[in-house]
């Protein structure tokens, strides 16, 4: 039977694939769990994510219904632990519902940019030459813009909406991801096992799939995790400028925008929505640092 040659040399002494993957994962989790701040941050982040997903069940009030007589209640007010907003709506309920969109806007752009930027970077790094020049020089142009301004420009042009914010941030993140992937591929490409795979007749596609991707994945992955917090803050910033969801939909950035006018009446009213953006970004950063240390990647 002829099977496609993947360039993987069989070696009976080496553990079989599952066992190897298993021990690698064990080693990674052992290192990650030893990193206290990262581990605690992961738990806290998990609590935030799960609570926002369960918002319809655990939210004490309807996020859109408010009593106008009960507006701008302070934190700890009776019946409203986190107070009420400018229309008398329960802030805790709005935080829980709003988190769904805010967290989504943090993660999705990184996923999109990771896929597109990663593929572009792998192509540029693996094939080199003209393809590399065209891809990388084109992406270089995007470095001439301050990230937030580019995102504002694109999403302002596309029009209001959380989907447009996601598109804008994805575009902003593609060039740096591509750059990381490209430089990682370039390093791996020179390794002897790639040459060995090629001499055994492996096709480009299999070399990329089995040898390149396996070896660059952790670097690109760690870089992408560090971008999630930036994406989250950026998305809430665009929302804050009024480019995201339109009221009355709850989203952390929009909540801050609506509450900012009330700051002279109740100076602490903006604390809560911002605190959730901040804590989410902080925990994501700590977890990303933990991943980086556990995978022993220097950046």
């Amino acid at each position, binding site marked *: 039977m002829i099977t496609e040659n993947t360039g993987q040399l069989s070696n009976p002494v080496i553990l079989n694939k599952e066992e190897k993957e298993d021990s690698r994962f064990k080693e990674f989790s052992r290192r990650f769990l030893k990193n206290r701040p990262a581990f605690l941050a992961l738990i806290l982040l998990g609590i935030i994510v799960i609570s926002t997903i369960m918002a319809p069940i655990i939210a004490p009030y309807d996020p859109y219904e408010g009593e106008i007589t009960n507006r701008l209640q302070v934190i700890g007010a009776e019946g409203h632990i986190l107070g009420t907003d400018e229309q008398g709506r329960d802030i805790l309920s709005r935080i829980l519902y709003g988190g769904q969109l805010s967290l989504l806007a943090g993660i999705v752009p990184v996923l999109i940019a990771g896929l597109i930027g990663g593929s572009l970077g792998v192509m540029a790094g693996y094939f080199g030459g003209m393809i590399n020049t065209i891809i990388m*020089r*084109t992406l*270089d*142009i*995007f470095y*001439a*813009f*301050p*990230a*937030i*301004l*580019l995102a*504002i*420009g*694109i999403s*302002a*042009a*596309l*029009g209001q909406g959380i989907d447009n914010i996601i598109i804008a941030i994805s575009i902003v993140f593609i060039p740096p991801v591509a750059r990381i992937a490209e430089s990682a591929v370039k390093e791996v490409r020179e390794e002897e096992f790639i040459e060995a795979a090629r001499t055994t007749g492996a096709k480009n596609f299999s070399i990329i799939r089995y040898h390149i991707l396996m070896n660059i994945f952790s670097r690109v992955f760690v870089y992408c995790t560090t971008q999630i*917090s*930036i994406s989250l*803050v950026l998305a*809430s*910033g665009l929302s*804050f*400028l*009024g*480019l995201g969801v339109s009221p009355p939909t709850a989203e952390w950035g929009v909540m*801050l925008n609506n509450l*900012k006018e009330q*700051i*002279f009446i109740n*100076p*602490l009213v*903006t*604390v809560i*929505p*911002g605190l959730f*953006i*901040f804590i989410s*970004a*902080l925990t994501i*950063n*700590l977890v990303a640092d933990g991943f980086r240390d556990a995978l022993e990647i220097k950046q």
Partner: protein
Amino acid sequence: MFQFILKRCLLMIPTLLGVTIIVFLMLQIVPGDPVNTILPADATEEDRLRVEQELGLDQPLVVQYLSWLGRTLEGDFGRSIIKQLEVGTLLFDAMKNTFILAIGAAFFSFILSLIIGVYSAYHPKSWIASFGNMIGLTGVSIPNFWAALLLIGLFSVILGWLPSTGMSGVGGGGGSFDMLKHMILPSIAAGMTTLGVMTRMIRSTVIDLLQKDFVITLKAKGASSYIILMHVLKNCTPTILTVAGLQFGYLIGGSVLVETVFSWPGVGQLIYQAISQRDFPIIQAGVLMVSIVFVLLNLMVDLLHAVIDPRVRHA
């Protein structure tokens, strides 16, 4: 050195051209026909064709781009749809104010990060080092518009120490002391991220340098800690300078949100108003202008780097 400068300047041209292409295309993705916003609802098909011709919208995209580029190079950024003023004039005034705020934020963050970064590299177990760690992490996680709101809440509303909006007080005379007072809160809010990034970077650079052979040699020769510090600082200057230059660029580009919160009359505030009024010529020109400043700043950093570090020149 001259060759290096020439090479860097020439390399900038394709970048700037690319920037203009992206900014031009940005306006092309705006949904809806721009002619519709100009024409009254009962306009005939002939009126529509005439307006299209006047605006050059009947030309191919490349021709439209080139004529737009030509006008832009002459300093003609078009007219604001809403304000009915020359975008160029509006932008130049705003740019000046954005620079003032960026300088304030840079002043606050550069000096503080240098002190905390160097000190915590020398004394990794001190409370300042832990504080520096916290700042490093907070700075990169905190949304600066939220920091701005917190600062206003605390220092303007509760304590009443500092003004919360604008560049000068009503009847404040607009003196430089008055402006400084107005600058404090926006500078801190805008400089927060830079403070975090630079503190982390300076600390790790200095820690690396302190383990270098030349420092050990200096110590062995009995050099005073002041002399060692001078050697270390001199060696980390190129790195710090590069990051500081980039960060200054981000301060100019990233101040949109902070300017909005403080009603600081800069480019960011202008762009924010333009977004809500869908005044696209201002958004387009604003993004273009800030990006050009950003590119020029990067060029200056590279050149300065070459002046300080001869290795860069010959690379």
